[in-house]
């Protein structure tokens, strides 16, 4: 039977058009999903692809605008704070309905936040947003009041999907797999609603006809799983999908010339860095790990920063698709992004780096390697993920640059897991790392404060074990400052302080590389306008704003004529094979010895 099916398929294959995917009478946007989905349950979803599906389904109180990432109204049409900045009042939009017909009220929002605050299992994805909350109450159907313990400037950037209470209150156990099923996650109020979920194959969403901003211009949105990005690129070329992201520079360059395909190069939201183990410690200031003590000297760290040439890494390793860095808030958020002045910048200058190390008292030994205070040659372990192309190729450059200033670096490319374990435990000297950021800078800055140091060795939280009173002061000032201009100023000062202390060296902000079928879709909304990305936005603007192209493919569903011919051919082949075999048997049966 297996052989028969395969034989039919082998024959049938060539006749079946590959792009028979479009459904009858509607526009379908098919998106290749290279990253997997961990959960659809918005309380647990932490992978970028899963949170993206959540953004489509459940509206937020407020969300970063498509134009410039400033807070825009969502479920909350307006908001205000008390004079002491501890009480926030949100006015919930009137007339918004869940897809099952129930009205969306302030009680749903209060329920969502309270559930995260009180149910430990519900904190997995968005627990950090409510840490500073005192209480959340709905005083009436349209008024939501949130009291915070200390003033919190990020209250218009709560990236928390608001879910319907009447559905989720029936789910006592957040980790129950049923919370990922369509009957639960299918009830939403966002621009799209989840209608089908086949793990590792497909998430299907349909346009929400009652969406308060208006129905999307497309009828259906499909996220189709591809485990291999080459296959995803191939699928785009063959018109099996309409959108692909997370492309490599090589893939991007080939797609630039592909017919019917348009590429989008955007400034990313991630920064790449080399973290420097300058004395890993716990919250109680217990030293952990075995970092080289020479890195405690800020002059050594600065010299290392001067010895590296990030521009070469961007050009040679990233194929030019990146932008060299300054502060830890990427250039895609210009309001908070900070760049060092010409004087402050550690420009690539091996001579200056050498001079700084000479001055600091690290003489070169017989073989040219500098001698540390302990009398031994300075040797640093450079940790990277073996799975990551960037670490593999960049490490050779970094080793030669450090060699030029008399520091011997040893390449240690290991599994992702071992990198996590060793960076958590402080058993490294230098390590390739990186972090994705959101439009509000509060979270990424908070990761660099003393409070983010691990409670015990091995528990993750801090990125570079940075703990600096001056940085903490600027962070505190930023997170309680409500005047946007003043707040931005504190954010920049904090980044300048970070930069001067070199707990890590920001190498670049990678470009986001995406491509779409421009013969099917005319345009998408970018965030920020003009230069931004389409798929992994902090918002749903990209796909919500998708505009079908004139005469784009809206092929009919069902089996095409070619497919039926193919079926016939397949059946015929099987019959012929079976007939021949039977005939032969009879012949040999006649021919008895």
């Amino acid at each position, binding site marked *: 039977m297996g052989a028969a099916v395969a034989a039919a398929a082998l024959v049938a294959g060539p006749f079946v058009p590959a792009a028979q995917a479009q459904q009858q009478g509607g526009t379908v946007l098919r998106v290749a999903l290279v990253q997997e989905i961990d959960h659809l349950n918005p309380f647990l979803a932490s992978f970028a692809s899963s949170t993206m599906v959540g953004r489509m389904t459940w509206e937020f109180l407020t969300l970063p605008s498509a134009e410039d990432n400033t807070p825009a109204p969502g479920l909350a049409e307006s908001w205000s704070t008390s004079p002491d900045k501890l009480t926030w009042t949100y006015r919930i939009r009137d007339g918004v309905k869940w897809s099952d017909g129930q009205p969306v009220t302030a009680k749903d929002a209060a329920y969502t936040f309270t559930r995260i605050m009180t149910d430990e299992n519900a904190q997995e994805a968005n627990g950090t947003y409510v840490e500073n909350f005192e209480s959340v109450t709905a005083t009436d159907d349209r008024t939501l009041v949130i009291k915070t313990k200390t003033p919190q400037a990020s209250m218009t950037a709560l990236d928390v999907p608001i879910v319907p209470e009447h559905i989720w209150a029936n789910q006592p156990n957040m980790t129950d797999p049923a919370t990922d099923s369509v009957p639960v996650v299918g009830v939403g109020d966002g621009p799209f609603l989840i209608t089908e979920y086949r793990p590792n194959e497909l998430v299907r969403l349909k346009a929400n006809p009652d969406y308060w901003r208006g129905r999307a211009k497309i009828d259906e949105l499909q996220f189709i799983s591809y485990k291999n990005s080459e296959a995803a690129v191939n699928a785009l070329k*063959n018109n099996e999908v309409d959108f692909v992201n997370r492309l490599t520079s090589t893939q991007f360059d080939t797609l630039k010339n592909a017919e019917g395909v348009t590429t989008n190069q955007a400034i990313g939201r991630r920064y790449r860095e080399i973290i420097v183990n300058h004395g890993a410690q716990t919250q109680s200031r217990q030293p952990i790990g075995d970092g080289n003590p020479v890195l405690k000297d800020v002059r050594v760290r600065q010299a290392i920063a001067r010895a590296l040439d990030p521009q070469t890494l961007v050009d040679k390793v990233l194929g030019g698709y990146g932008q060299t860095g300054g502060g830890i808030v990427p250039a895609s958020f210009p309001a908070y992004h900070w760049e060092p002045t010409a004087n402050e910048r550690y420009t690539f200058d091996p001579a200056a780096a050498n001079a700084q190390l000479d001055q600091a008292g690290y003489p070169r030994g017989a073989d040219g390697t500098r001698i540390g205070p302990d009398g031994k040659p300075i040797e640093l372990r450079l940790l990277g993920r073996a799975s990551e192309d960037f670490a593999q190729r960049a490490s050779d450059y970094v080793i030669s640059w450090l060699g030029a200033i008399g520091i011997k670096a040893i390449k240690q490319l290991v*599994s992702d897991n071992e990198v996590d374990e060793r960076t958590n435990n402080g058993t490294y000297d230098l390590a390739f790392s990186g972090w994705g950021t959101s439009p509000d800078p509060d979270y990424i800055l908070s990761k660099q404060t003393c409070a983010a140091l691990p409670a*015990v060795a091995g*528990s993750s939280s801090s990125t570079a074990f940075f703990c600096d009173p001056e940085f903490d002061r600027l962070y505190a000032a930023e997170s309680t400052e409500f005047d946007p201009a003043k707040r931005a100023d504190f954010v920049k000062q904090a980044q300048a302080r970070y930069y001067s202390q070199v707990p890590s060296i920001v190498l670049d902000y990678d470009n986001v590389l995406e491509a779409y079928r421009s013969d099917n879709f005319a345009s998408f909304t970018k965030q920020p306008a003009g230069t931004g990305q389409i798929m992994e936005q902090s918002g749903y603007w990209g796909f919500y704003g998708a505009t079908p192209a004139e005469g784009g493919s809206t092929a009919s569903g069902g089996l095409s004529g070619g497919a039926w011919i*193919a079926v016939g051919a*397949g059946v015929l082949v099987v019959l012929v094979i079976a007939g021949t075999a039977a005939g032969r048997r009879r012949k040999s049966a006649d021919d008895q*010895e």
Partner: protein
Amino acid sequence: MTNALSTAAAELDEPRRGTGTARFLLGKLGGAIGSLLLVVALGFLLFRMIPGDPVTTLTRDRPTSPEQLAQLRARLGVDQPLFQQFLDYLGGLLRGDLGTSYGYNRPVSALIGERLGPTLLLVGTATVLAVALGLWLGVRAAWRRGSLFDRTHTGIALTLWSMPQFWLGLLLLIATQGVFPSGGMRSPDTPPEFFPQLLDVAHHLVLPCVTLLAVIYAQYMLVMRSSLLGEMNAEYLTTARAKGLREDLVRRRHAVPNALLPTVTLVFLQFGLVVSGTVTVETVFSWPGLGLLTYEALRVPDLPLLQGVFVVMAGSVIVMNLIAEVLYRVLDPRVRAQ
């Protein structure tokens, strides 16, 4: 092939039971259970030697208090001594409980059960085709040893056998340019009726199946070829020819059935290995089977899931081994006589 099996079965019709067979079966079964236990123990230890604490892997990028970590350790049972953990694991295994996946938060057995079907479909189809193709080519090549046919096909088979599956898969994907789907097992919008679904799955099956087939048929062909070559000078063939039988009958009814033995056992021996070898093919074509599950589990890494997949895959090799050994005895009277 069917002829050969029925010939062998016909010889079995005569009851020839005895303590020998029972002891043989018991011995083999015991051996298989022993290997299985060893595999379980090895798998258990192996996945505990992977660097990285499962709890910190799970809490990656999230601030966690020591209390939360301790709670999580207790929930996952990794706070117990290693030996106790092993006993618990063994106890669960006997009840068919392979533990709970960290990444999916679902029973490992359910996850594996879901993925087994697609993998068996892929491996089964590829194996059936590879056996048919390999045996046919092997017989032809041996019968016309040294001919152009023999040299060409041996060359092609050896080349394909030594090709990396990943590379071959990508090559096929790009070469066929849009004729077959680039990935997955089903299209999103195929009508739910049986026949369109069947056709859709078959269409998706072509490329992964051909890739797998191209790599595995070579050994069936080569074994069949060499084993038939070994039979070709045997005297019973001369006898058969002397009886005046046509040449193709001599080949089909006398030489091939005798030469088939090593190949039949090889099919069973290989089947288990092919199941575990689908990781690359399934990853290239996003085929939602066991291989892909392994790949995903490795990336987290999801220890209970990895362990479960490991036990199932190793188990399939052991079971197939057992079947091959028993089958060999059934098919070949010489082995039975020993």
